[in-house]
């Protein structure tokens, strides 16, 4: 047994002990410690395999006998899980201390990690599907352990209903693949004709797409992520949606490969819709966690754009760019996992300190919570794609890939690539606007409510977890080129790529990431030096001669108003102004404005109503009369006999 294999097995065992421990009276701190060690070991094994060690365990097989194993792609995802889970577990140790149901939350967190690892390490359909279902149920149970008010119960119901309905797609795809032996032998599906392949692709798109939060299947995501305990929100948004991407990658690039062109174009289309739609809805949110959840939809869209571009390149036969687009998607998976979990953990600290995540109640937190605030600021800059941070790197690479799709040989795919590239550029711009709003309203200015004024930094673990992830953001921004060759190698039929610290792509130049970062550090140092001893603005801000008071500050709705006005036709904001007059004088003005989530009212509600109407019709045959049931039975028996007689039943 090699070192990587030993680490993987040991990691799994330690993680299981850490998960079961809290239920048999093991205190939660050592249990979380065991979970962290287990995840760390598994992640280390993943890194080893990704960097060239031999694959661990079994290979994929088409039967239902349980099998586990780690290859390069699984290794990458295991490493991503570990990178997010380690700070999240450290954070959870302090965040959960004394919480009601602490033991259960720790155990369910461990189960969640086990199921995430189980999906990426599964080597047969049975383990894959079992881990997949557990991955859905564990966070739902954790949410219910923490909060049981009717509103949260409804959210959990919606989460389970949407993900399970969508999840049937995963079952259909996986069982079909297993049936035709395509898990072990990727060529097997190609011999079955287009209909079977289409079934698998559509099943995978719906099943994995629902879990990944691709629009328009994302309805559960902005509801469920905000109500989960923060360290689990970080894992849900940072890793769980990525594990769905893992499934999509396996189907599109391995099991059902080579996929037809339309599948790539569908990926581009849903990616574009998710990226633009996600960021637009993120922009108009007032609740910080809800904003972050919608931003996850956006970033999953960007990943889907990269994967769509890779599919189109493969269809065109351009293996080099297919590999680069594929690697861009994987790099964005990693980057988004890092900064989104950072932002969720920091948001959890804000919520703990202020008691609310309403952006109109925060403010001035950078001074009061310098560590968490600075980490949040860096994470916001990274997710907004501010160069040279890691979010910019992977978005730049995705954009390069889309530009190359646009320059491709055929007009149709070229047009699709052009639209997608333009859409991604617009997404990046709106994301910047969105996170300027989030960071500005939460961190800068005066506290908008007294609770924000007395906010203090949490303890060391909750402070260091976001700071560690911020460090990861910078490291990933500095030397993305060292990681890229390993990711390119995971693409099907990829050519070898030399490792540079920066990014070197054929045809359109390079991104000298380390030098950019160095330049910014030097410029910042110079600016710092030039600033001298000044700590604050020397004169008060000019407010047209009025006294500066909190009511004059920006509000969430006010900041985004210009863009919402421009996009009125799409977003259809609703607002209500009530003016109460007394004796001819205005006594009070109340204002209520919101941007309704049109997907709920225009897509999900009609679907639900239709389904309920059908159910009511079907219910009529459930008369409750024994005689009616006997009559059904008689009809069934006679029909079966007739069918047998005419030979329709074999």
């Amino acid at each position, binding site marked *: 047994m090699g070192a990587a294999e030993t680490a993987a097995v040991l990691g799994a065992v330690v993680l299981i002990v850490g998960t079961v421990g809290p239920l048999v009276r093991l205190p939660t701190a050592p249990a979380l410690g065991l979970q962290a060690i287990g995840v760390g070991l598994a992640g280390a094994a993943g890194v080893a395999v990704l960097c060239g060690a031999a694959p661990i365990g079994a290979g994929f097989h088409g039967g239902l006998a349980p099998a586990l194993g780690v290859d390069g792609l699984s290794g990458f995802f295991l490493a991503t899980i570990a990178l997010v889970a380690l700070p999240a577990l450290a954070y959870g140790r302090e965040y959960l201390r004394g919480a009601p149901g602490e033991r259960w939350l720790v155990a369910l967190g461990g189960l969640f990690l086990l199921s995430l690892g189980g999906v990426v390490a599964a080597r047969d359909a049975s383990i894959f599907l079992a881990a997949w279902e557990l991955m859905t149920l564990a966070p739902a149970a954790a949410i219910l352990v923490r909060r049981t008010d009717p509103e949260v119960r409804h959210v959990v119901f919606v989460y389970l209903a949407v993900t399970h309905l969508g999840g049937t797609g995963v079952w259909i795809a996986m069982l079909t693949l297993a049936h035709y032996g395509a898990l072990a032998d990727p060529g097997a599906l190609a011999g079955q004709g287009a209909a079977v392949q289409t079934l698998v692709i559509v099943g995978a798109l719906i099943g994995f797409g629902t879990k990944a939060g691709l629009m328009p299947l994302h309805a559960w995501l902005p509801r469920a992520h905000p109500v989960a305990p923060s360290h689990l929100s970080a894992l849900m948004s940072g890793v769980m949606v990525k594990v769905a991407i893992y499934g999509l990658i396996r189907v599109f690039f391995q099991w059902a490969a080579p996929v037809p062109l339309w599948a790539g174009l569908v990926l581009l289309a849903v990616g574009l819709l998710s990226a633009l739609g996600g960021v637009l809805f993120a922009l108009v949110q007032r609740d910080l966690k809800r904003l972050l959840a919608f931003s996850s939809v956006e970033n999953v869209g960007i990943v889907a754009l990269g994967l769509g571009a890779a599919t189109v390149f493969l269809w065109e036969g351009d293996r080099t760019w297919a590999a680069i687009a594929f690697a861009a998607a994987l790099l964005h998976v990693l980057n988004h996992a890092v900064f989104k979990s950072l932002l969720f953990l920091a948001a959890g600290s804000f919520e703990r300190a202020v008691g609310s995540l309403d952006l109109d109640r925060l403010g001035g937190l950078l001074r009061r919570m310098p560590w968490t605030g600075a980490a949040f600021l860096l994470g916001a800059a990274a997710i907004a794609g501010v160069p040279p941070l890691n979010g910019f790197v992977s978005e730049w690479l995705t954009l390069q890939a889309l530009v190359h799709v646009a320059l491709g040989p055929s007009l149709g795919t070229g047009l699709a690539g052009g639209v997608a590239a333009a859409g991604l550029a617009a997404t990046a711009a709106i994301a910047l606007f969105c996170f300027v709003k989030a960071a500005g309203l939460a961190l800068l200015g005066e506290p908008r409510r007294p609770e924000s004024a007395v906010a203090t930094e949490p303890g060391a673990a909750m402070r260091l977890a976001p700071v560690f992830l911020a460090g990861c953001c910078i490291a990933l921004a500095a030397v993305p080129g060292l990681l890229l060759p390993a990711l390119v190698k995971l693409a099907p039929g990829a050519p070898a790529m030399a490792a540079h610290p920066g990014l070197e792509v054929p045809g359109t130049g390079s991104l000298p990431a380390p030098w950019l970062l160095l330049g910014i550090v030097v410029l910042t140092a110079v600016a710092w030096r030039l600033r001298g001893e000044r700590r604050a603005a020397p004169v008060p801000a000019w407010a047209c001669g009025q006294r500066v008071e909190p009511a004059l500050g920006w509000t969430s709705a006010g900041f985004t108003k210009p863009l919402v006005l421009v996009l009125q036709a799409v977003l259809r904001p609703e607002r209500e102004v009530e003016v109460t007059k007394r004796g001819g004088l205005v006594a009070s003005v109340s204002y209520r404005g919101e941007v309704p989530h049109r997907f709920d009212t225009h897509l999900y509600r009609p679907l639900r109503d239709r389904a309920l109407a059908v159910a009511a019709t079907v219910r009529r045959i459930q008369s409750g*009369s*024994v*005689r009616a049931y*006997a009559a059904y039975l*008689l009809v069934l*028996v006679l029909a079966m006999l007739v069918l047998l*007689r005419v030979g329709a039943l074999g």
Partner: protein
Amino acid sequence: MNAAVAALVALGIGVIVVRRRSLATALVALQGLILGVTALSLEGGDSGTMVVAGVILLVRAAAIPVLLVLARRRTPERTLVAPTTSVATRLLLATAVVLVAVAATPPLGLGDRVAEHGSVALLCLGITTVAVRRPAILQVLGVLVAENGVYLLAIAVPGGVPAVVELGVLFDLVLVVTVAIAFAGKIHERVGSGDTDLLRGLRD
């Protein structure tokens, strides 16, 4: 064999058609008797299988009818439960079901087509009895007719069915009848009649 099957089907039709529970119970008991005698006559001289067939005969033709008669005594109907369908309609329906069942029965591989037809017809007649008769006891009798159809199939299997299976099925049957009678008693206690249609009022 052919005469026995014809008699069994005729008795099955009778259970659907007759008005009184006592008469229907007697018809089912007679079915059990005919089945038992047929089974005994088909067994070769093996004493073990003869004993099993004898026990089955006693239970089907005597024990279960006695249970049903006792149950009927315990649940007297003040007025007859008015049947939803007339005697002629029921007779027509039963005949139609028998004809369709016989026409639709595929070869089941027993070699004896008459027994195959007879057992499928009895099964369908039993279910039809449950579907068209309202008193609880008559519905139990419907289940017994269907079960008799299955037993006919079992004794027609060349070489016979293992004794363990036959006794297991018998035990099952006694259990089903006991539970059904207990429930019929409860229903009577609650709504003052064995009319299962009254139970629908309890729904929702």
